[in-house]
């Protein structure tokens, strides 16, 4: 495993530490003693061919098809370079359908994540160490300019066609390279704006070549990124990335290959009710909509996501077996039923109508969920995330509509005072049932990017006295009759607006408590409960003063920086300074250059990281986090919690379920835990 770099090795070590830290964090609450937080555990991949099984079994349904001559024998369906998985606990048995809830056609991530193994590299259960998936090996050259991917020999698509380097090159040249489908190059393939190339070496070897050192590419390939993300997530819902695509199936929809060229492709699209060939292609390459599409994950769609139920069945050509030679997955399929709202979904989960559900489960309902455990015949697991904060108050650094407010948002002591005024313990008890860790926005202590001791507490403890003193000192000492501080320009009360969206967490309610706490140091904040799309449009237009959001994903700073530093532009949730993000992304041609030297320093550090080797990247990330926390562009509350996808209800009938899941975007919760190895005990 060439990518077994120090970065990832440290992350692995780190996860051992996490287990030591968590019980301490939970000790204050009764949940700590409940045994709900398990130990991270995961499957083992057997790399040594000598230990591989020599004979193979398959599901009874597939055996029947083989008997009828409709399917080749199991040994002919499996690749030469097998993926042999030792499940978490035991060898399972075939059968059963996984019942689960989803919220509609927009919820395709629900299924994409189950098929997460359809990417070249997938992180293991710690979220830190990369495991082989479609690729059996990979290597970055010493100069950081060539990355080589070795695919499994004999891989097959779900329709039986061979999967080779040609499918990678097809994606690169005909999908990614077609401006009608993908209008702009992605930064994942363009270090310092210089486009990289994908080159076929032989049928099972692909090279990625760059003009400048791009060591970060190792992390990008192993993360949930546009290039490393695989087919299910990156080519559904009108997305067109993912690194490879089924050439033998998709070619017929492209003008370049379709009979009759562009006119032929458009005519065929119109005949099927699509406006043009691009619209038709978007449909045809979407695994959640098109049951015909060849896929590589453990399951394929049989009834599309845009019906009342989304139904999947096992992929007969799935390329992994257990140590006894049983072809995976064990489960016959997945049936997701549409829940018109989240309350119903949560109630159904408690009624035991789902076999495993962590998505859309509301942590606020935990007491009721626990109460119904026996009745609903499920067990509850609490999985913990490693991002620093589930509610960060981002102060818009490029805000300019009200110069007085803008002046204070850009004042570092004003920001620090606001942070010191927060009683994070009260927030934690009220909205996170005490399970979260209060403090700064920094990622979990055990992670390599954590800047070091003291940075969890820096400017992030509760100190009303100091907050008041700082506010007095910077020129906000005058107060009105109600005790609120007044503006320096017209003597009116200084009012800040918090824009809050009811999304993953009850942010509007949380913000009411935050506003109340700020009120105690004389700062008036008004909470604007805003519909999500409107909120995004407003912040895209640089209209918000303060926006509250999670910083989930920032634990991998370089892969998902948008909620740590202002280096992305609208529509990528640029809350910390949309105009500065635009300036950074456009290379200085659009937006507004930040006056704050600390932000410019962040930009320089971030830019330099892509060409640095692992050690250098870690140091740079720590430097960035130190600036971010010292400057308090985002005021963090509490994090490392189970709030998002961390409350998991598992039917007592299921086996091989890890007692703790990795909760992170790149872990593809729950897909990183390899659902193909889960089975029904009875």
């Amino acid at each position, binding site marked *: 495993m060439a990518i077994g770099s120090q970065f990832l090795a440290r992350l692995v070590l780190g996860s051992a530490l996490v287990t030591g830290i968590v019980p301490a964090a939970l000790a204050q609450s009764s949940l700590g003693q409940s045994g709900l937080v398990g130990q991270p555990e995961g499957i083992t991949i057997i790399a040594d061919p000598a230990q591989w099984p020599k004979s193979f079994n398959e599901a009874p349904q597939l055996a029947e098809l083989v008997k009828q001559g409709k399917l080749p024998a199991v040994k002919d369906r499996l690749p030469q370079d097998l993926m042999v998985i030792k499940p978490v606990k035991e060898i399972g048995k075939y059968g059963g359908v996984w019942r689960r809830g989803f919220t509609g056609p927009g919820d395709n991530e629900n299924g994409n994540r189950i098929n997460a193994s359809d990417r070249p590299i997938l992180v293991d259960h710690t979220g830190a160490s990369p495991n082989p998936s479609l690729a059996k090996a990979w290597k970055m050259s010493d100069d950081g300019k060539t990355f080589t991917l070795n695919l499994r020999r004999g891989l097959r698509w779900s329709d039986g066609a061979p999967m080779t380097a040609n499918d990678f090159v097809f994606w690169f040249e005909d999908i990614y390279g077609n401006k009608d489908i993908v209008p702009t190059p992605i930064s994942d393939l363009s270090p310092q704006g210089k486009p990289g190339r994908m080159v076929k070496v032989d049928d099972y070897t692909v090279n990625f070549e760059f003009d400048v050192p791009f060591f970060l590419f190792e992390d990008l390939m192993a993360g949930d990124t546009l290039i490393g993300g695989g087919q299910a997530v990156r080519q559904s819902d*009108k997305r067109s990335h993912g690194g490879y695509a089924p050439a033998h199936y998709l070619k017929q929809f492209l003008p370049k290959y379709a009979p009759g060229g562009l006119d032929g492709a458009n005519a065929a699209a119109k005949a099927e009710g699509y406006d043009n060939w691009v619209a038709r292609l978007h449909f045809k390459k979407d695994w959640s909509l098109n049951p015909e599409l060849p896929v590589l994950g453990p399951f394929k769609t049989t009834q599309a996501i845009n019906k009342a139920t989304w*139904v999947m069945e096992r992929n007969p050509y799935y390329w992994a077996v257990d140590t006894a030679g049983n072809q995976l997955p064990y489960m016959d399929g997945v049936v997701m039923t549409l829940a*018109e709202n989240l309350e119903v979904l949560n109630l159904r989960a408690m009624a035991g109508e789902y076999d495993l559900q962590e998505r859309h489960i509301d942590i606020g309902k935990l007491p009721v969920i626990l109460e119904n455990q026996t009745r609903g015949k499920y067990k509850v697991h609490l999985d913990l995330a490693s991002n620093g904060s589930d509610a960060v108050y981002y102060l818009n650094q490029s805000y300019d509509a009200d110069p007085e407010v803008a002046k204070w948002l850009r004042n570092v002591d004003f920001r620090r005072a606001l942070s010191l005024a927060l009683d994070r313990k009260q927030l934690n008890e009220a909205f996170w049932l005490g399970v979260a860790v209060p403090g700064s926005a920094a990622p979990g202590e055990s992670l390599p990017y954590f800047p070091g001791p003291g940075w969890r507490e820096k400017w992030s403890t509760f100190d009303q006295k100091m907050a008041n003193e700082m506010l007095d000192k910077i020129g906000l000492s005058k107060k009105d009759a109600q005790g609120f501080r007044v503006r320096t320009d017209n003597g009116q009360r200084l009012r800040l607006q918090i824009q809050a969206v009811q999304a993953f967490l009850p942010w509007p309610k949380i913000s009411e408590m935050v506003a109340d706490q700020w009120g105690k140091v004389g700062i008036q904040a008004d909470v604007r409960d805003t519909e999500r799309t409107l909120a995004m449009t407003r912040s895209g237009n640089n209209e918000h003063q303060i926006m509250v959001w999670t910083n989930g994903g920032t634990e991998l700073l370089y892969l998902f920086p948008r909620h740590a530093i202002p280096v992305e532009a609208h529509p990528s949730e640029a809350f910390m300074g949309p105009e500065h993000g635009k300036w950074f992304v456009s290379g200085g041609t659009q937006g507004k250059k930040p006056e704050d030297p600390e932000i410019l320093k962040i930009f320089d550090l971030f830019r330099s990281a892509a060409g640095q080797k692992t050690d250098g990247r870690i140091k740079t990330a720590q430097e960035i986090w130190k600036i971010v926390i010292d400057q308090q562009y985002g005021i963090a509350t509490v994090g490392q919690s189970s709030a998002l996808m961390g409350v998991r209800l598992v039917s007592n009938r299921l086996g091989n379920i890890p007692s703790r899941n990795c909760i992170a975007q790149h872990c593809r919760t729950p897909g990183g835990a390899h659902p193909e190895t889960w089975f029904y005990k009875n």
Partner: protein
Amino acid sequence: MVTYILQRLGLALLTILAISVVSFVIIQLPPGDFVDTYITNLAASGSAVRAEEAAALRIQYGLDQPIWVQYWKWLSRVATGDFGMSMEWGRPVLEVIGDRLWLTIVISIAAILVTWGIALPIGIYSAVRQYSIPDYVFTLIGFVGLAVPNFLLALIIMYFGFKLFDLNIGGLFSAEYQLAPWSWGKIWDLTKHLPLPAVILALAGTAQLIRIMRANLLDELRRPYVTTARARGLPEWRVIMKYPVRAALNPFASTIGYLLPFVVSGSIVVSLVLSLPTVGPLLLRSLIAQDMFLAGTIVLLLGVLTVIGTFISDLILMWIDPRIRAGMHG
């Protein structure tokens, strides 16, 4: 008579057209468009969309054109029976609605029947026995039914249904019939699930109808013709049922027009809570997502339903009330 009907039909068409213009404008009112919503959702699942990609999507959906061009394109397609593709669901609008329309109609009719079944007898009883103890009791229950938001009622009933009787949470089918093709078993399964949503939807309208029936009947009961009928020695139930009740029925007939759209759109919250696969939640969803063709078609459908309902109630009124018939000739 024929001119009257033709007149009504012409007005109905104009009304529908006006509704379609208004609905299209309303859908466009909130800032942003479908692509904005779509990008927001993508961002939520961790994907990034660039401004260039967003622009490409807008062109693909025709969102780059002015509203009136979009409207005209949509309307001329609707005229040929093509309602377009739902942006969110990626399927023809008619198909998306069609899945849910039949169940919506079944639930609506069940709810209307339950409303009448409860409101009529109680209304008559409390008018005839005005200020009796049962009159007060029913009136109280009626007002409570009116005052309690029915989504709350739905939640409470659902919770106790689950807690005490192990009922399914929401929906119209058990898990085993969810995917099955239509069969007697599936119809029976639907019949078993129907009473709960029907009763909850019915209760809100019941109180109103009880009060209307009671008030109207009280007016009628004091009329001289009732006294005359009594004096002629007709049995009491016949006196009441044959004349005053018939006259008091008018409001029932005239509200039919509003009942159909009410059950589709007025019950959105209840349908959401009960997770009913009806048109209501679809409308809400399409409005939030600014899925114009889907929302536009549903609003248009509601308009058509209202107009048809009003038309039917006009006809029924003509049939049950000779005075209205006479008025037309005059």
